[in-house]
């Protein structure tokens, strides 16, 4: 099966990467973007999704600064 994990900075944590992208958009003529947050998409191909949550907590995300969600996509 395939699992898609989305990792992103926790709400309220400074996201300089998102901020840099946000400030670059107007330079290309894209207006009206209030906030941008940059995260990370991780795709796993595995036999069972039983341990995905543990993988997210122990390695794929750092719970001190990031939150995650995951879903089975195929």
């Amino acid at each position, binding site marked *: 099966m395939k699992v898609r994990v989305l990792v992103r900075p926790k709400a309220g*944590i*400074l996201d300089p990467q998102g901020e*840099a992208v946000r400030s670059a958009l107007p330079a290309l003529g894209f207006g009206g973007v209030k906030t941008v947050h940059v995260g990370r998409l991780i795709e796993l191909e595995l036999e069972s999704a039983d341990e995905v949550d543990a993988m997210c907590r122990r390695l794929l995300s*750092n719970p*001190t600064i990031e939150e995650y969600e995951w879903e089975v996509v195929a």
Partner: protein
Amino acid sequence: MGGRRVRIGVTVFPGSNCDRDALYGVERMGAEPVELWHADPDLKGVDAVIVPGGFSYGDYLRPGAIARFTKVMGSLEEFAKEGGPILGVCNGFQVLTEAHLLPGALLRNTHMRFVCDRVSVRVETTGTPWTAALAPGEELTLPVAHNEGNYFADPETLARLEDEGRVVLRYLENPNGSANDIAGVCNEGRNVVGVMPHPERVSDPALGSDEGLRILRSVLVGAGV
């Protein structure tokens, strides 16, 4: 210790690039440098360990995230629990936070630029093995070179660090957006210290300064080794 030369280990991960500087710094401080390869759990009876800077595992996923699961780090967690003195420098600091040997995390610099400079830091506590030979409030000039040096911890953790005197070094001018101008912290047991500045890069007057030796040499006093 009957004249035995103190042995100080330096961990080496794929992508470490300050390991040689750290080994040289250990030599300069008068101790015996011992290389600790990431795939070998044997700490070789060292008295203290330095986790050096660099880009372990290419900073893949997050700085320090992969290095944290190596065999040598498993042994280092035990060493930390037993009170062994550990100093994490730059990427080493990131590795120690990922391993939960130190609280908080190092985020990307707020200005989104790599910072490579010399900065002034103040010694905030001498109650760690790596600052024991310094004077409280003393100022040191040390090099920094990092992209993720912006120290973050939740407000409760930050308050605890301040109350318990666990901020070890503080920037006089904040180069990266770090919370409370924090340049280094220690764990609850005070034996594990992480700093963003590089004491090992200023361990010889030929490199411009040997001020960093004052931190490295502290461990000879501070750990009673």
